[in-house]
C-alpha cells in the first residue's frame, strides 16, 4: 500500500518539476497513440462505411472477422509486424523497425478493427430508411456519407475512444517493434514494464498514474465533443 502512496507522490513530483525524460515519454505516448488512432479512424471508418453501404456475398463473414479483430492480441500484432519489418524481411527496405513509426503502424493495426467493428455497428443502428431519404432529397453520395457520420457521431466517438484506449494501454506490440529505446521509442507503458523489472516500483507507479491521467484527459476531451450537440 505504501508503494502506491509513494508512487502518487513521485508522480506529482515528476509532473511538477517537469522532469524532461518523463515529459518526453508522455508526449511520445500521446503522439504515437494519437496518430495510430487517427490512422485507424481513417481506415476503420472507411471499412465500416464500405461494409455498411454495400451488399455483397460473404458480408456476414467479413463482419464476423472485423468483430474478431477487435480482440487482436497486441503481442501477436507485435510479432507479425516485427518479422515483416526486419531488415531481411519483406518490408525491411522501409528501415522503420525500432522507430516510433513502427509503433504507430502496429498500434494502427490493433485499433483499426476496433474502430471498424464499433463503427459498423453504429452505421447499422441508424434507421434503415435514412439513407434513401437523404438521397431522395437530392444529396450527392459524399453529402449522404457526411450526414450518416453526423447522425451516428455519438457511437462513432465512442468507437474512437475505444480505439485510443486500446492502443495507449498496450505494451506487447510497443516493446517488440519499438524496443523501448531511451529517448526514441520509450513510451509510458514500456517504461513502466522496465521500471518494474528494475525493482523501481515507485517510479513504475508514478508512470502508471501519469498514463491514467493522460488517458483521462484525452477521453474527457472526446466526451466533451461527443456530448456537446447531443441529439435530443
Amino acid at each position, binding site marked *: 500500500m505504501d508503494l502506491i502512496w509513494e508512487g502518487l507522490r513521485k508522480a506529482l513530483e515528476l509532473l511538477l518539476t517537469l522532469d524532461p525524460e518523463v515529459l518526453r515519454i508522455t508526449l511520445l505516448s500521446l*503522439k504515437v497513440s494519437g*496518430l495510430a488512432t*487517427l*490512422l485507424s479512424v481513417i481506415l476503420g471508418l472507411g471499412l465500416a462505411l464500405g461494409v455498411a453501404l454495400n451488399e455483397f456475398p460473404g458480408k456476414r463473414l467479413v463482419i464476423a472477422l472485423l468483430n474478431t479483430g477487435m480482440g487482436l492480441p497486441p503481442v501477436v500484432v507485435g510479432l507479425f509486424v516485427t518479422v515483416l519489418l*526486419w*531488415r*531481411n524481411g519483406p518490408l*525491411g527496405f522501409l*528501415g*522503420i523497425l*525500432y*522507430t*516510433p*513509426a513502427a509503433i*504507430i503502424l502496429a498500434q494502427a493495426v490493433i485499433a483499426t478493427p476496433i474502430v471498424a467493428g464499433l463503427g459498423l455497428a453504429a452505421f447499422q443502428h441508424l434507421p434503415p430508411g435514412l439513407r434513401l431519404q437523404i438521397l431522395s432529397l437530392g444529396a450527392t453520395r459524399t453529402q449522404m456519407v*457526411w450526414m450518416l457520420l*453526423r447522425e451516428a457521431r455519438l457511437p462513432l466517438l465512442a468507437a474512437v475512444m475505444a480505439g485510443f484506449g486500446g492502443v495507449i494501454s498496450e505494451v506487447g506490440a510497443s516493446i517488440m517493434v519499438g*524496443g*523501448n*529505446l*531511451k529517448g*526514441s521509442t520509450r513510451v509510458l507503458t514500456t517504461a513502466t514494464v*522496465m521500471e*518494474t*523489472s*528494475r*525493482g523501481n*516500483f515507485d517510479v513504475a507507479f508514478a508512470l502508471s498514474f501519469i498514463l491514467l491521467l493522460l488517458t483521462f484527459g484525452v477521453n474527457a476531451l472526446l466526451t466533451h465533443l461527443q456530448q456537446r450537440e447531443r441529439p435530443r
Partner: protein
Amino acid sequence: MNRSRWRHGALALVILLAATLLPAAPPAQPAVILATTTSTQDSGLLDDLLPLFEKQSGYAVKTIAVGSGQAIAMGRRGEADVLLVHSPEAEEALLADGAGIRRRIVMHNDFVLLGPPGDPAGVSKRGALEGFQRIAKTRSLFLSRGDHSGTHAQELKLWKAAGITAEGQPWYQETGQGMGQTLAVASEKKAYTLSDRGTYLAMRRNISLIILHEGDPTLRNVYHVIEVNPMRFPKVNGAGARAFADFLVSKVVQKRIKEFGIGLYGSPLFFPDADVPNVDAGRR
C-alpha cells in the same frame, strides 16, 4: 456545417502524419543494433556506457534488451549487429555456424542461489551442487526463468551437473519472464531460485530472499561480445559493430565497468576481464 474547414483540417492532419512517418533526416552513420540481456540494461550499466560510445564514435546505438536466447537468435538471422550475452554454449554454436565472429570476453559477475530467509530446506549447508540436490530431495519450490536466457541455460546446466531432472516435477515452476519478475514471484512464493548478482542487488530492497550460495566456481557468469558476420548478412553494420566491441574491451571502458555500481549498491556489479591474458585462449 463548414465543409472546407474540415477538408483543410483533414489535409493538415495527413501532412502531419506523413511528416512523422518519414525519417527526420538520414543519419550520418547507420545505427548499431545491440542485442543484449536484460541484466546489462536493468542494472543500469548500458545507460552508463552508451552515451560515452555514442559521443566518441558518432554511432547511435539501439539497445534491444531481451534474454540471451533471443539475442543470439537475432544474431543468427542477421537482425542485430553486435551481441553482449552470457550463454557460452549457445555462443559457441553461433560461432561454429559462422553467423557470429570475433567473440571476445568483456566481463563476469556471478550467479547466486537464493532462497527464503531461514533456508527451510537446508540448501546452504554444503556446496552449490549439493544445494540443488537438497532442493530436489526436499521437494522445495524452485522457480526457473524458463525463457532460454543465459541465466536459464546456466540453471539447466547446474541441474544436469547435480544429476537431477527437474523439468516436469511439481516443485519446479517456470515463469517464462525476466529476472526481476522471477525474483518477485520467488519472493512471494518463498521459493528457491537462481539469479545474476546484479539484478538481485538492484531488487534486494523490495524482496525477501537471501543468498545461500555465492562465489562457487560453478556459479561464474561470463559476458562475451560477439560481432554478427557482415560477410554473411550484407545489411549488418559491421564497422559499427566492430567499433562497439572494441569500445567494450578498451582500457577506459574496462575501468569504468570495474567502478560501476559501487556508488549505487556499495559493491561492483561486474568485473572486467578483457585485459586478463589468455582467459579465453583456444576460442576465437
